[in-house]
């Protein structure tokens, strides 16, 4: 079962969740994280193919609160850097 995978070098142009500015939305592509942690994030609502919205952040910009499926989850930048997104917004 493949839940997370390293991206091939050819796809290096992809954006990460850390680049998503406050008030912007995107579609989650994959979670490049240890399986245990990736599972927890998926349980919380970070599902590949699903929409994500960047909301408030702590003063200084880190951690940031992301909105997924009506929930608000705070993540650190170091985690957001390993979550890939595509700019298209899922329905």
């Amino acid at each position: 079962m493949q839940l997370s995978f390293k991206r091939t070098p050819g796809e290096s142009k992809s954006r990460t969740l850390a680049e998503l500015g406050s008030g912007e939305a995107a579609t989650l592509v994959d979670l490049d994280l240890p399986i245990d942690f990736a599972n927890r994030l998926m349980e919380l609502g970070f599902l590949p193919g699903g929409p994500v919205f960047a909301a408030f952040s702590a003063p200084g910009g880190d951690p940031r609160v992301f909105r997924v499926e009506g929930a608000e989850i705070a993540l650190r930048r170091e985690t957001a850097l390993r979550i890939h997104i595509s700019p298209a917004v899922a329905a």
Partner: protein
Amino acid sequence: MSSCHGDGNGRNSAPIAEAEGPTPVGQRLIALVGPPNAGKSTLFNRLTGLRQRVANFPGVTVEHRLGKAQVEGHYDVELVDLPGIYSLSPRSEDERVSFDVLSGKMDGLRKPDAILLILDSTNLSRHLTLAAPILSLGLPTLILLNMADDLRARDGHVDVDALSKSLGAPVALISASKGEGIEAVERFLARGIAVPKPIQLPVLQDVPRCRQWARGVSEQAGYRHPAPPELSRKLDGVFLHPFWGPVIFVIVVGAVFQTIFTGARPLMDGVQALVAMSGAWMGGLLGTGLLKSLIVDGLWSGVGSVLVFLPQILLLFLFIGVLEDSGYLARAALIADRTMARVGLQGKSFIPLLSAYACAVPAIMATRTIENKRDRIATILIAPFMTCSARLPVYTLIIAAFIPERPFIGPFLGTRAAAMLGLYVLGFVAAVATARLLKSSILRSERTPFVLEMPAYRRPTLRSLGLRVADRAEVFLKRAGTVILGVSFLLWLLASVPLIHGHTPPIEQSLAGTLGRTIEPAIRPLGFNWKIGIGLISSLAAREVIVGTLGTIYGMEPGKDQVGLQQALQHDLSPAGAVSLLVFFAFAMQCMSTLAVVRRETGSWKWPVIQFTYMGALAYVSSFVVYHLLS
């Protein structure tokens, strides 16, 4: 989707009763299961009439708790409240508790006969994911969609019958905090809950599949997401504002300290007057004998001098209650994450640390939500540095005796409140410095990821705040009636022997005085005399005991019992000695209950011994330095 009834224990393939089918018998142990912050403990409290701690952030319940639900015309049903879980793969100590109870591995508790699955109806498409692993257990299950009032208010909708049909189990909409739908739950408890009908469940290990399944089920049930909590978002816009957020935080904290000091004053004066009046009244009844000495000078002076602080402590708890119930605490953890990261911990450690302002014991329990073991131990070790409510009487007494009240920052913050605030900061700095030391040496570990679900803001209910304050008053009075009464009695005894010519001795020559004088050489360098020494010894049981002890000592000294504790203290402490004593109480580990809970949570005496030694040494050295710098 692959058909899979979990672990193939075969129970699901048995003929299944409808929800309205024959009454299953013998359901006497029922588990409350659900994701964090779904309202399990609130429902538990409703059904059992108990007062399990609840608050508005994930991970409040960290251990299982049993309670009896009185169901009319039926035997009592035992409910077990569990920590929140997202799935059946536990990642932290609190989640393991739920897992162990559900799989019947918990010591001293048999496997539950049935399950109440509590989900947040405003988060249904997400929360339904947990229904898959829970239904796969094959236990009789009743699914409760909590916060129905919130769902309606925000124009959300779900078809309960359709949901019940697709899940094969009864479903009910309730509001545990408002009491809506509780009779329905009780009816189910009385009648017995049926085993769920077999349905197609996704492979449980495949999280995306489970999520897809949950989304599908909620769509079939016509689930309409409630409108976004606009008010919550507006509030976050203010509380998490890069500039105003921290400013508001500081203003609120300052106001609280000022209130604790000046707002509580009239109430405290009232209690003090009552204590003095009742003491004089009892004295009049008892004459001048030994009995009067015991009851009025010994016990009542000791207990009474601690009782005075009740209003102040209740005010503090009221404030903490508002913070916890409103959901602000999770935002504070978010703001604190960066600071915590710098010392090697994470924002999640901040929640136990904040609750340590009330008391270190529940704070140490709350560390169970921290997944990383080393982070957890580091948090346990630093929690007692946070200024717990037991230090409040000690601080208040000494500050009021030695610091004159003047405006400090304009009319907003007086000198006394500022001194108190300074002591709180001192404790926090000690905690953070110790964490840094630990995390860069014996407890070094990889940085653990920080994930925290932000609860929506909620208006704290008067009922919940009232219960917290009442609970605290009970704990405080119980302690005054047991520990402090006991210590006061022992002290009176020690201060009354040996008899000289059939009379009680001057306190210097009593056994207590001798004891104080024996340790005096050790504490003289810190600026304390033998009377403070007796107080320090007794405060090893619990910090606020020193106030009672001093009350008893001065109560038994002829001439001193009239002037009050504050003036009496001014005779025995120099200003430098007073600051030194404050610093000592900020750092020293004087609390048996905390040591006991650290022993239990870490599983050995190693950590409590290290903690006690470290905090004691730090207290001694700091007091020594402070005293010599100031005098």
